[in-house]
């Protein structure tokens, strides 16, 4: 019999949590203390292996962890208290669920005997977070804690990644029990994500690809989540087949923007050539994307003449919005590897010269064109200049949500995966600034820029204080048009130009705001001053708020109007008031 007091695996619940983080290789933790997590914070205080980043609001912790996860491929870890700490995490958890980002969120809970009593800072955390997590647990016994924590990391990071919550009552944190390192039996036997694609389906896919006359590859965030190998294999597939490739917002960077087969992003604000290629193709290979409504446009007119192959790790993504002919369930890298092998052994590069000629005609429409000005900075121009200034640098981009996000996706070219962090599925304004924090924590010496809008950035502005505290030199590049631009754009297009509450009548002075936080502020009005200011911003080794005053009424084109198909895009050159009004169902006069 061993003396339990000397057993190194005997420890408190709070100590188990920190120990489990270390065992899972966690180096950084984003959080905010409170009554129900004090024992865990006490343990964090007494160690140095895990660095804790103190945010200013729990939502900031969540988005920072998302940026951290998205840019590293490792899970982001969050620690918050019960009640409001947990409810403030609902937005980032939902965001992570929609975009398949691995997060492990540990929440404190009131002591077990008070659960259900409406105790101070109590909420039904597992109930509230059930629909916004991949899975969650309430741990009532300290001896279950190690198993649950290990399972949480496993569930978050395997299969289709996603957020998980482990809710730990305060008495469980204080109680002593037995810890064990991660082991296979920690996971539900019912949880068995499929990684390897079905060989027969892969053969069918290769046969379709080999016979294609007008093929297109449509890749998504799943390729990024699958890891660098998946992006490498995707590039090889494009090389071997010679097929054109487009990508969703979430998939940018998997194939390089300078690659010769790149069509640009697809979807509502995608390029004309990519959407036309999607519409007119005869074989579509969808890799790690989910036929989201921003991608498909009108579903009954979506790519009507094509055979569709869909590679996805989540069976529930198959046939959800669009019926596909050859579904392949598995991990992108795994399936792409097998598919390439079969293609190379059994198929030749199809001759698709005629298809490329058609694409060239669409491309010549220059759907991203905009009118430049010497007087005011066009938002598109600002992003082009920012992109130009950061070429060849080790750069990571995050965004908020709105027009600036779409312009960033259109005008900033990504050469590598994991360089682009944006809230795609949930569309969370306020995502970009804390996300940039998380990216910078993981990549201390890299250039991390949040391309922001003036409205979004004010939703999580308080995290500038975190950036200053931890000397995280994030650059917040605000395209300031003084409007909620995308809201206004829709009001102009769909609601008779009645700009209901989409104008910020009291804009803060972002330069003074930066200074108040102890950061650096810039403000630019004229195109001629832009390049110099961007260079100065990059040189500063401190957090920056960059107030880039842009044309106030510029709108984001091209665009697929609601209820329309891919081949009914509205191009910028054609987006006169009359054409725009006619393009929208029940069109109203635009001013």
């Amino acid at each position, binding site marked *: 019999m061993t003396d339990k007091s000397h057993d190194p695996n005997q420890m408190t619940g709070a100590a188990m949590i920190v120990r489990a983080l270390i065992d899972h290789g966690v180096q950084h933790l984003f959080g905010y203390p409170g009554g129900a997590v004090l024992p865990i914070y006490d343990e964090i205080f007494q160690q140095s292996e895990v660095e804790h980043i103190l945010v200013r609001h729990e939502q900031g912790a969540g988005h920072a962890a998302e940026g951290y996860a998205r840019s590293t491929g490792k899970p982001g870890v969050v620690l918050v208290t019960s009640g409001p700490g947990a409810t403030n995490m609902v937005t980032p958890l939902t965001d992570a669920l929609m975009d398949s980002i691995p997060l492990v969120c540990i929440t404190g809970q009131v002591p077990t005997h008070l659960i259900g009593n409406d105790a101070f800072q109590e909420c039904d955390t*597992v*109930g509230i977070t*059930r*629909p916004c997590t*991949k*899975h969650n647990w*309430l741990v009532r016994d300290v001896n279950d804690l190690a198993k649950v924590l290990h399972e949480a990391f496993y*569930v978050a990071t395997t*299969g*289709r990644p996603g957020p998980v919550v482990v809710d730990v009552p305060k008495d469980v944190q204080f109680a002593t029990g037995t810890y064990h390192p991660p082991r296979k039996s920690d996971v*539900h*036997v*019912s*949880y068995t994500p499929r990684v390897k694609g079905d060989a027969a389906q892969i053969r069918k896919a290769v046969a379709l690809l080999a016979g294609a006359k007008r093929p297109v590859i449509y890749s998504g965030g799943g390729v990024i989540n699958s890891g660098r190998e998946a992006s490498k294999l995707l590039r090889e597939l494009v090389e071997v087949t010679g097929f054109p490739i487009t990508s969703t917002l979430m998939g940018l960077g998997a194939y390089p923007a300078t690659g010769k087969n790149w069509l640009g992003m697809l979807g509502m604000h995608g390029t004309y050539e990519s959407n036309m290629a999607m519409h007119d193709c005869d074989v579509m290979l969808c890799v790690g994307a989910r036929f989201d*409504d921003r991608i498909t*446009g*009108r*579903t*009954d007119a979506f790519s009507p003449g094509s055979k569709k192959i869909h590679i996805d790790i*989540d*069976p*529930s993504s*198959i*046939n*959800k919005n669009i*019926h596909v002919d050859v579904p392949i369930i598995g991990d992108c890298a795994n399936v792409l590897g097998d598919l390439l092998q079969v293609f190379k052994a059994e198929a030749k590069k199809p001759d698709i010269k005629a298809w490329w000629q058609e694409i060239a005609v669409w491309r010549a429409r220059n759907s991203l064109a905009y009118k430049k000005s010497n007087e005011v900075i066009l938002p598109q121009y600002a992003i082009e200049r920012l992109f130009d200034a950061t070429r060849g640098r080790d750069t990571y981009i995050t965004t908020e949500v709105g027009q600036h996000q779409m312009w960033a996706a259109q005008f900033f070219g990504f050469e590598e995966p994991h360089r682009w962090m944006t809230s795609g599925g949930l569309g969370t304004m306020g995502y970009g600034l804390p996300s940039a924090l998380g990216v910078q924590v993981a990549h201390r010496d890299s250039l991390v820029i949040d391309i922001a809008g003036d409205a979004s950035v004010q939703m999580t502005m308080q995290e500038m204080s975190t950036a200053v505290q931890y000397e995280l030199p994030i650059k917040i590049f605000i395209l300031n048009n003084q409007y909620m631009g995308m809201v206004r754009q*829709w009001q102009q*297009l*769909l*609601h008779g130009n009645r700009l209901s509450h989409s104008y910020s009548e009291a804009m803060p002075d972002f330069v003074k705001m930066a200074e108040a936080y102890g950061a650096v502020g810039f403000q630019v009005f004229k195109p001629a001053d832009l390049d110099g200011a961007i260079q100065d911003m990059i040189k500063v080794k401190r957090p920056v708020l960059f107030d880039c005053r842009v044309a106030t009424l510029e709108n984001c084109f091209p665009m697929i109007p*609601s*209820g329309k198909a891919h081949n009914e895009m509205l191009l910028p050159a054609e987006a006169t008031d009359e054409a725009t009004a006619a393009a*929208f*169902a*029940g069109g*109203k006069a635009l001013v």
Partner: protein
Amino acid sequence: MNQPASAYFLEERRDPTEAHTLSVLVQNEPGVLARVIGLFSGRGYNIESLTVSETESQKHLSRITIVTTGTPMVIEQIKHQLDRMVPVYRVVDMTLTGRSMERELAMVKVRGGGDNRVEALRLADAFRARVIDATTESFVFEITGNTGKINQFIDLMRPLGLVEVSRTGVAAIGRGPEGM
């Protein structure tokens, strides 16, 4: 047809709907039923009937039988959405297998006298319903069968003095020697 101005593509779907019976084998742990029900309410799926009980206590397994309706695409979605939940072992579409039996149990209280009382007893006998409680002015019948048979019995009892009904919901199992 003009649709209202919207940031979403509004489409009316008019595919015919079908009723399916799903058997779902789950780990019996706190919150598992809430997860399943939350999935249905959160994604706008229908629940016509839901029956749940632990079936193998040593392995902590529960079996949930759900009768749902939807278009074939929605039914497919429901099965995949259920299957990807962490505590779900298996989802079997009993309707698709075509080799399943469905039963539910109902307790039916009927109050009345005279000819109605005699008629209720006679019908109960025809439906093989048992009398499990009786007073001089009422009966409680216990009846098992598929949903259609029970509906029919209840309809017949209505004019004879139906007071209330308690039903278990559908349980289903496949024919033949194989388990699910």
